[in-house]
């Protein structure tokens, strides 16, 4: 996800760290037995100290074993609620054959990672990749440690390794019945070098990994002890409140610093700017409230630059006009779609639009710094927003001016909403010629995406290249457009916009052909001999149709909508197939109530933690639904209109549907991930259901822009 933006957040901070000679923090998590752990283990006021005791022995860089058999496993990915700490620990424990109830986890030391030649492989947490990329080396770390422990026991007893077995951290010599616990041989094991690395398990040999496990970090999140970035405190710390140019790419013209300086607690007023930082002003004070109120009281004059009159309405207008120009880049051309369309007796055409979207991370941005060192804290859900480092860059620019005083920069909710990296708005036109059997004989798609800054080429047609449905004549092309509005990865990156377009259009075709949308999709998949995943798709589609009760008679105003897709990219082969059925009602006044969402999710041969996977799906449903119903970022006078949760609303408790997650083994290959694989199909499933319920076709989002009232 972050690849195109260069260095990762962590690389950046660590680079600075080397200069500042700081310290990296590790957090430890209690044992799995939640009740006991809640009593026994706390993050103390000094959370950077590992929970591992003095007599714990390190068996390889990834884990420590205590004399009482407690295993502390180190995790290189950041917890943002996706269960990654638990999942990573499980991958090590699967091979280690230790007692899972005695496992705890802590973050790896970033300093050590760099000191020891990237010993922890990769420290970024993006693109649902933690499991996909981490599995081989985490399993290897566990297997390696296990074999060293076994070798230590074999040495102790002077017996061959082959005579030993292990279960739950207890090594047994079958012939004599003798046993040794891991805690007893750890020290010896630490000194052992293996002649060769052991082989790791294949998915069919997993025992622990397939089981749902409670999350190791839950206890810390119910008593206030989990430390988020915004919670970090260091002695002598100052607080900064910031205001960046409201019109992107604008400049500070002037401001009256005395107004702020005369207020209580204010330390200084500083300007910040730099490469890839929106220019602005910060007030630094002895508390965030002092800083914030002084900043609000201080008049700032902005030089709006050349974008002070730009608006998203204009962006849409010019994008629509661009739809008539032949695509600047062609992704797929097959046969002669133009000719077929010209001569067709039935043509279906639709233009779709989606707005800019923000991420609304729950935790406002904040960067605590002490001559810049790195705290690996819990992160409030990232949803694709955490990969940019603009907040870090800004904090560095501020900190540099404070003569070495540590400072915590906190963005207000308004600032967080107005200075995001938004999901690019896009406009598209779809055309298809239907043959006498109702099946598409030709299909063209043109997308105009405001994606030029990010995500760029790979993402703008993501999910649209290699059409899974059989169509003999095809043209897919696109235009990239640039505005002054920063764009970036939103959960599922470039895909969610396109999935809405594509799966709505297929639905339109089915209805135009007078066929059931589920069976229509099936038929188009069955006909597509070129699509290697057709069978797998049908499996997932069938599962969601069956589980949701597809095809049942529903009263007027109630409808079901279906959508399916995978996570295809141009540059990768792994996919996760996911299909969604929404069941909803639309009142005569036009209020939409999504009653139920069935999500059939491809698991491949295994899931590392079904419990975490289920929760990830729930999160995506909440996020996807909020976006469909109400969310949009609009630009007026060059700046973002929305500010806080009143204008950029989250889904409310009363709006959450009954979510049914159905796991399906669609293929024998490991899946691409699960963190962003359901969200794209929430919008089309919901909009297709609205059409089924009351006959209105939704071609632009959010729904709040449409009048959905109806009468019988």
């Amino acid at each position: 996800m972050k690849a195109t933006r260069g260095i990762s957040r962590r690389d950046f901070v660590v680079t600075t760290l080397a200069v500042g000679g700081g310290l990296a923090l590790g957090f430890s998590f209690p044992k799995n037995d939640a009740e006991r752990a809640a009593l026994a283990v706390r993050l103390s006021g000094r959370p950077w100290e590992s929970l591992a005791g003095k007599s714990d022995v390190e068996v390889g860089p990834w884990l420590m074993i205590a004399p009482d058999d407690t295993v502390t496993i180190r995790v290189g990915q950041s917890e943002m609620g996706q269960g990654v700490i638990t999942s990573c620990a499980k991958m090590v424990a699967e091979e280690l054959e230790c007692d899972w109830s005695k496992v705890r986890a802590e973050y790896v030391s970033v300093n050590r990672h760099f000191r020891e030649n990237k010993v922890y492989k990769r420290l970024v947490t993006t693109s649902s990749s933690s499991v996909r990329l981490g599995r081989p080396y985490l399993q290897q770390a566990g297997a390696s440690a296990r074999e060293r422990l076994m070798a230590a026991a074999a040495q102790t007893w002077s017996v061959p390794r082959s005579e030993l077995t292990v279960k739950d951290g207890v090594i047994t010599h079958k012939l004599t019945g003798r046993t040794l616990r891991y805690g007893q041989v750890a020290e010896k094991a630490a000194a052992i070098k293996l002649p060769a690395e052991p082989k790791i398990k294949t998915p069919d040999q997993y025992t622990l990994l397939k089981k749902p496990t409670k999350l190791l970090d839950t206890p810390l999140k119910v008593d206030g002890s989990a430390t988020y970035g915004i919670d970090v405190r260091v002695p002598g710390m100052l607080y900064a409140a910031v205001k960046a140019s409201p019109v992107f790419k604008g400049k500070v013209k002037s401001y009256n610093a005395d107004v702020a300086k005369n207020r209580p607690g204010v330390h200084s007023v500083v300007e910040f700017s730099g490469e890839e930082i929106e220019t602005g002003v910060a007030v630094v004070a002895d508390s965030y409230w002092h800083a914030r109120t002084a900043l609000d009281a201080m008049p700032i004059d902005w030089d709006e630059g050349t974008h002070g009159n730009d608006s998203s309405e204009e962006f849409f207008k010019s994008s629509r006009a661009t739809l008539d120009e032949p695509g600047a880049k062609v992704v797929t051309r097959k046969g002669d779609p133009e000719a077929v369309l010209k001569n067709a007796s039935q043509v279906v055409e639709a233009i779709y639009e989606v707005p800019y979207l923000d991420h609304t991370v729950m935790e406002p941005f904040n960067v605590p710094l002490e001559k810049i060192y790195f705290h690996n804290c819990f992160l409030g859900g990232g949803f694709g927003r955490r990969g940019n480092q603009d907040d870090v860059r800004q904090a560095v620019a501020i900190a540099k001016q404070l003569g070495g005083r540590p400072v915590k920069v906190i963005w207000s909710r308004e600032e967080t909403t107005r200075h995001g990296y938004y999901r690019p708005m896009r406009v598209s036109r779809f055309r298809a010629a239907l043959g006498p059997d109702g099946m598409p004989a030709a299909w063209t798609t043109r997308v105009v995406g405001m994606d030029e800054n990010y995500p760029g080429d790979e993402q703008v047609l993501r999910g649209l290249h290699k059409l899974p449905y059989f169509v003999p004549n095809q043209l897919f092309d696109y235009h990239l457009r640039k505005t002054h509005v920063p764009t970036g990865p939103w959960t599922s990156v470039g895909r969610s916009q396109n999935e809405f377009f594509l799966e709505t259009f297929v639905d339109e075709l089915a209805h135009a052909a007078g066929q059931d949308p589920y069976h229509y999709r099936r038929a188009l998949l069955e006909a597509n001999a070129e699509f290697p995943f057709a069978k797998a798709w049908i499996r997932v589609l069938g599962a969601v149709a069956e589980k949701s009760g597809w095809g049942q008679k529903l009263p007027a105003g109630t409808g079901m909508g279906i959508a399916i897709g995978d996570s295809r990219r141009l540059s990768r082969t792994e996919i996760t197939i996911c299909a969604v059925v929404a069941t909803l009602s639309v009142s005569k006044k036009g209020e939409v109530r999504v009653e139920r969402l069935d999500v059939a999710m491809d698991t491949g041969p295994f899931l590392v933690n079904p419990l975490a996977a289920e929760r990830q799906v729930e999160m995506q449903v909440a996020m996807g639904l909020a976006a469909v119903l109400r969310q949009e970022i609009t630009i007026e006078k060059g700046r973002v209109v929305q500010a806080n949760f009143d204008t950029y609303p989250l889904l409310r408790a009363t709006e959450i549907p009954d979510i049914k997650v159905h796991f399906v083994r669609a293929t024998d290959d490991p899946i691409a991930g699960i963190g962003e694989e359901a969200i794209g199909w929430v919008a089309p499933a919901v909009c297709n259901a609205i059409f089924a319920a009351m006959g209105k076709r939704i071609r632009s989002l959010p729904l709040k822009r449409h009048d959905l009232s109806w009468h019988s």
Partner: protein
Amino acid sequence: MLSLRVNGKAYNVDVEPETPLLWAIRDTIGLTGTKFGCGMALCGACTVHLDGKPVRSCVTRISQAAGREITTIEGLSADAQHPAQIAWREGDVPECGYCQSGQIMAAAALLAKNPHPTDADIHREITNLCRCGTYLRIRQAIHRAAELMAKP
């Protein structure tokens, strides 16, 4: 100088009386379990109890809280054994967890005045937002906490 009683302990806080309770708790007193989400009483991440009643501390001035019993997530129970906390752990409710202190405080206040809340009661009384959509788990956990409380 104002005196605030937080979790049974008295703190002298030397900030302006109009300072929001949230920032006094977090920055001055140093209890960071109470979170900042919006600052406009919209999300509930900052929920604490004043004399047992839930308030959004981001819009509560410390002058309104002085002389009253303030309870934060850290003081909800001595050992994280409040029925809501037990139920939250059992149900693995938190996702990113950022909103959960506020959710638990809101739930605990509801349970104190209504030991058997219905779904409708919960929807009416707990309007806290959760970006991660843990609402279904929260509702289940509240029912479970009610059950735990009913046990002798």
